[in-house]
């Protein structure tokens, strides 16, 4: 790979002889937390690409997550022009052009804001995963940063117009845009292929489904791994180890790319089975033409929207597409109870992650320094562990991901455990 990128790290470290300070410890914890966020981002979003292929049987569950993981890994490595301005759409702690830290903001405060924001994002991701709700990881991160920023700097630290124009409005519009595109696609597909023999149609569309789902996975790797890379780069900038000029000149240090691409791929491979299940079985009963139309709509929108001046969340688009594929198919049933809970989850994402981010910031700031950072990290580990333990009481994995969906609402009911044993 590029030698100039690899060469950066040694030079940067040499120019800072007093690296083993408290701030470095905070930075290291921040990086670990960022990688953990990236990991949750991976398994939370496996379903966006692969839920339809798993539900229709186009791909076996394990094959689907492995394919998606590889494409996410490739996608992560394709991220060479990473925006370090990741926080600028919600906070005013960075220069919007260069990504440099605002004057007057000290390193520890900046690192604590990012750190607490990540904790808010991770905990909301884990909580929605427990409930089997697809929710946007970017929104969770933005929410966490928003709360931490409010706690640290007050309302003046928030980029309100950016929050409205770049986060809230696109989130409100994207499910409708995606739903419309998928509904039109599905309607056309069934209209055109109505005379085709069922078995041939089902088989033919499986190939199309796998191809479009692969595109969504790749796009996810390029788009989402970048966000964590941007966050880590920002942490390094705040700490003073890296400058925005160095990134401008040499690109990101290669270890950040390796770390983030690897974490998102590993997360994807582990598969957020609970969310895959909701997306593939809970919303609509899917067959392969619907699955293809849904993923084609998702892929087209995710890949083009940012070039057209509107960055949309993968999760919102994928969910909208799947619902649209149910709306557009004559006779198909959408479980609006499930869809309604998702919408509630989306509306809660920003405020809920913000509250966690703010509380975390206060706790960390109250204790301060390395002790505060370890305390925050401890809170994350304990809360994350508790959610994981709860999830194990009702496991969803590759064996029961396609079990019949009972009832109108979301699951998290005892039937699932038994349904899994039968499957």
């Amino acid at each position, binding site marked *: 790979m590029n030698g100039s990128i690899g060469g950066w790290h040694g030079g940067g470290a040499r120019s800072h002889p007093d690296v083993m300070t408290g701030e470095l410890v905070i930075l290291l914890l921040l990086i670990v937390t960022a990688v953990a966020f990236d990991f949750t981002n991976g398994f939370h979003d496996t379903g966006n690409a692969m839920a339809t292929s798993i539900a229709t049987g186009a791909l076996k569950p394990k094959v689907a997550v492995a394919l998606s993981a590889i494409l996410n890994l490739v996608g992560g490595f394709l991220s060479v022009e990473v925006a370090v301005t990741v926080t600028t759409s919600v906070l005013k702690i960075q220069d919007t052009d260069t990504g440099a830290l605002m004057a007057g903001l000290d390193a520890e405060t900046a690192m604590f804001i990012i750190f607490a924001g990540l904790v808010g994002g991770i905990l909301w991701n884990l909580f929605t995963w427990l409930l089997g709700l697809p929710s946007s990881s970017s929104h969770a991160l933005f929410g966490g940063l928003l709360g931490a920023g409010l706690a640290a700097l007050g309302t003046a630290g928030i980029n309100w117009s950016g929050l409205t124009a770049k986060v809230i*409005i696109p989130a409100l519009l994207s499910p409708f845009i995606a739903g419309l595109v998928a509904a039109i696609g599905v309607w*056309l597909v069934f209209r055109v292929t109505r005379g*085709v023999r*069922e078995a041939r149609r089902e088989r033919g*569309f499986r190939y*199309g489904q796998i191809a479009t789902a692969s595109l969504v996975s*790749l796009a996810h790797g390029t788009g989402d791994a970048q966000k964590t890379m941007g966050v880590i780069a920002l942490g390094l900038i705040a700490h003073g180890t890296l400058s925005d000029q160095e990134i401008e000149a040499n690109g990101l240090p290669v270890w950040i790319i390796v770390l983030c691409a690897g974490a998102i791929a590993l997360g994807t491979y582990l598969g957020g089975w609970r969310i895959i299940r909701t997306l593939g079985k809970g919303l609509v009963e899917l067959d392969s033409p619907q699955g293809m139309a849904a993923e084609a709509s998702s892929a087209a929108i995710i890949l*083009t929207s940012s070039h057209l001046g509107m960055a949309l969340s993968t999760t919102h688009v994928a969910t909208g597409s799947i619902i649209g594929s149910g709306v557009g198919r004559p006779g198909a049933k959408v479980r609006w109870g499930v869809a309604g809970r998702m919408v509630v989850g989306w509306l809660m994402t920003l405020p809920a992650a913000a509250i966690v981010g703010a509380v975390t910031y206060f706790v960390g700031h109250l204790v301060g320094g390395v002790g505060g950072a370890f305390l925050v990290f401890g809170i994350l580990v304990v809360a994350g562990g508790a959610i994981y333990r709860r999830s194990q009481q009702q496991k969803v994995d590759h064996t029961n991901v396609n079990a019949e969906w009972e009832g109108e609402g979301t699951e998290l009911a005892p039937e699932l455990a038994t349904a899994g044993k039968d499957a």
Partner: protein
Amino acid sequence: MDIDLTSIATSTLSVIVVGILLGAGLPLLFSLGIVLQDRGAGGEHADGSITAPNPAARYASWAVFAVVALVVLYGLLFITKGSISHYLGIELPL
């Protein structure tokens, strides 16, 4: 707060138009390929009628699938053009 509603509306509209062209157009084209393939195979159909295999329809179906594949390939190159230029130094005119 300075929120440019016009630019949001314009972006939304272009996302919808491009989304429909690619996101619904490609499945439509693919469906056409499936229909041609089904005709090309011949045999007994759902309505009980029996037709002879039709090679012309089969070739046409492969042509349609090739077009779909090319569009997807274009899409792939489009996503990766930044990286291709970075790693290989090739500037794609996309």
